[in-house]
């Protein structure tokens, strides 16, 4: 196959991708292996080939060949660190998270343990990067036979890479805690409080409190301890009360609001530019009221009334507390957690 690629270049790879896309069910394991090996060299700029590979891989996941898909993705992502991600491989990403969660979690553990920042980043965007329900790990970490240091390493990576998806991070830490018996469990359990609960005292606290009340779990004492620490911390914060003297001035509030609204405007603009939906529809601004009425002349020459009632939608996101209190500290901590290597 490599000879063919050498001779005929990308065209061959495109045919391979098409074969994977169209005939995957009829391919023998040996042939599949040949194709996948060749397709590791597909160029990221060949969008058509990449899309075919993506769909083909997603079907392979459904056919129970996820392990091989995982190896393929690992290889192609590492070969193209700045250009390929689950953004291009969204179909296989979707298949992994919906059809083979166990495999997705296994990939996450292995990719985080690899210490490779690119792979960990891809996993972070796959398992944390949408507005869906948070991913909750259920993986049995004992099957990996990790040493204490390796368990701590995995837990710290979970915090580093899933920091902005705290329930996901906490669930992976809890999985780790179930497999650690030594005093290291306490160190790992501390990560639940700091930095996770310290930053996210809303949904994460509710989630962890529910786990404390839930079925028997070896990690429960650690969860309980972390929640108790958070409650003590919050009690201290609440004890201060409202200190009017610390309020920014009216002028400062105005400037900050203006700056904030400018930031939001830019984000909205960027989102609209990259939105598929916005490119399909036309935009019309309604200045007052809760609905829109318009008339269009039909084929019969008469005006037909079109009425549309407006709906509303909202989404919420909990910002990490320390982003305001110590933004530099948070940034440094994340850099450290993400980049650190496993000590020998």
């Amino acid at each position, binding site marked *: 196959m490599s000879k063919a690629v050498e001779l005929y270049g990308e065209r061959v790879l495109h045919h391979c991708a098409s074969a994977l896309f169209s005939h995957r069910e009829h391919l023998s394991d040996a042939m599949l292996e040949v194709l996948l090996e060749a397709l590791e060299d597909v160029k990221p700029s060949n969008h058509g080939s990449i899309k075919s590979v993506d769909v083909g891989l997603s079907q392979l996941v459904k056919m129970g060949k996820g392990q091989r898909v995982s190896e393929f993705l690992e290889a192609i992502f590492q070969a193209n660190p700045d250009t390929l991600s689950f953004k291009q491989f969204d179909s296989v990403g979707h298949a992994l998270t919906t059809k083979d969660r166990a495999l997705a979690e296994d990939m996450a553990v292995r990719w985080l343990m690899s210490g490779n920042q690119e792979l960990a980043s891809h996993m972070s965007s796959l398992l944390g990067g949408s507005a869906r329900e948070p991913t909750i790990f259920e993986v049995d970490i004992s099957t990996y036979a990790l040493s204490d240091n390796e368990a701590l390493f995995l837990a710290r990576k979970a915090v580093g890479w899933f920091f902005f998806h705290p329930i996901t991070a906490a669930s992976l830490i809890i999985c780790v805690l179930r497999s650690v018996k030594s005093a290291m469990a306490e160190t790992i359990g501390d990560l639940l409080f700091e930095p996770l609960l310290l930053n996210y005292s809303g949904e994460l606290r509710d989630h962890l409190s529910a786990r404390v009340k839930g079925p028997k779990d070896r990690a429960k004492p650690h969860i309980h301890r972390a929640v108790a620490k958070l409650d003590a*911390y919050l009690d*201290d*914060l609440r*004890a*201060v*009360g*409202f*200190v*009017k*003297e*610390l*309020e*920014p*001035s*009216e*002028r*400062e*509030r105005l*400037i*900050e609001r203006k*700056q904030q609204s400018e930031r939001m405007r830019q984000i909205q603009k960027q989102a609209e530019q990259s939105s598929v939906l916005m490119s399909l529809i036309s935009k019309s601004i309604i200045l007052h009221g809760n609905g829109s009425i318009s008339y269009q002349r039909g084929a019969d020459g008469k005006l037909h009334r079109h009425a549309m009632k407006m709906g509303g939608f909202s989404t919420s996101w909990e*910002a990490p*507390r*320390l*982003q*305001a*209190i*110590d*933004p*530099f*500290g948070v*940034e*440094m901590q994340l850099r450290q957690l993400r980049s650190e290597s496993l000590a020998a």
Partner: protein
Amino acid sequence: MKLVIKEYLASLKEREELDAMLPNLLSEMGFTVYSRPGRGTRQYGVDVAAVGTADDGQRKIYLFSVKQGDLNRQDWDGTPQALRSSLNEIRDAYIPTCIPSEYQNLGVVICLVFGGDIKEAVHQEVRGYIRSNTTTNVSYEEWNGDRLADLILSGILREDMFTGDMLSHLRKAAAMVEEPDIAYAHFQKLVDAIVKRPAKKQVARISKAREIYMCLWVLFTWGREANNVEAPYRASEYAVLRAWELLNGMIGKKGREAVDAGIVFNDLVELHFAVWDELASKILPHVDKRHAISATVPSFSSLDINLKTHEILGRIALRGLWLAWTKSQSALPEPLETTEDDPLHVIAMQLFGLIDNNPALQSPISDEQAVDIALALMLLGVHGGLKKAIGSWLDVLVDRTYAAYRTHGAYPTCKWSYWDLVEHPTEKTDEYRKEATGGSTLFPLLALWAGGYRSGNALATLAKFKNKHLEHCNFQLWFPDSDSEAGLYQGSDRHGDMLSNIPVDAEGVETREYVDTECASNDNFSKLSAIQLGHWPIVLLACRHYRLPVPPQIWLSLVPCADSEDQGT
């Protein structure tokens, strides 16, 4: 205006407030106050004693017994602290034994002073008491809130001196006390108008200081009522500084005016402390709790938290340095020995707690915050037992600042308008970084302290930082010049010199030598009235209030030389 004054009088507490205001009011009315309230117990029921001319033209002794707010049944009778008991004590003990011999022949007027009114229920009893105890030599007067307000408006704030404009500014300052910027701006205009009014005689300057004192009281009580003393705090700093400008020519001299000037100035400083105490009661109990002060800043913006925590840092440090001043006899700050229950030790530990628990204080965002950091370092240095704390804070400050610079994070910029800071860093480019760090007073300050406190890491990092990244940055420190005495206390920005191009070396020797050389040859600092008269906290107050870098002459005595035996360990 009378309503504003009455509201103020009604909210005054008896101890250290109404009785502290009264002597100033009496002095301005021409009375000679011979006994003022001291801390501790009253003298046989008398809070203030004075000699003055009564309505009938006779000189008489006035003995004042003070109660706060309205006079109700409980305040009048039934407890040892009640007014009736005090009046009995005056009649039975004070008049026979305590009147100075030179006033023995004068008639006595016993004044019942309270900030509010007599409640109807006790009115008859009070009148009855007065009737049955009035003699040819002893009479009684009620000085209620209404009368006190009239006396203030016809005395300290009398119309010919205290013009309509001034009244308007005072009214607006009080009304806008919940918008501190606006309230402070009005108070500032009010004080400026008082100070600018022509006054050749010394006694007129003292009167001006009393006016400022009274106006500050009014603003403070309104702020306290609104549970927001931000404007009164800033106003109290300004009031002390302008009063110093008015009175420093008299302080330390001999004669009645000098004594009166000293008393008024002391009252103003005490009032500044009272305002601070009110603010501190909300802050200090929580400084040892993690993130508690940062989280209390009602804003999601890290900039607001950064600015407010540094502001609080500077205020706590300054209050601690006032305590050090009262404890020390030295002309400049010096390391002092402290015990566990020493207020200086307590406040220094609270300051350290604030730094430790609020990480914004390890990441200054504006060079202007060098003022607050300098004051904090001074308080920790004055304490004498916190050398390790100084070293570790310096290490963290320098490490984080250097890392922030390298990663285009929120490193300290020489820009200081809120507009600039809210967007800082606007760009992650070398060009912007160069522009944002054109000059620095923070880095030489840190270098000198790091050199003195053996914070080797900080010093080495700073030297590397300067050599690798900040070649373009002018490291500088502020020194007073010959115009500073005229400009420092009123906040002029047209005085002082910057010592530029300060070198930073990994041993700290070169830096120290460079700055020491200028200190030795520049005598403008020692010519400042606040320094000549031994009131060095006034210079620090001016620096904090007007955001001027703290001159090194005032803190270098706390920093051992880099090569000395006495270095911090």
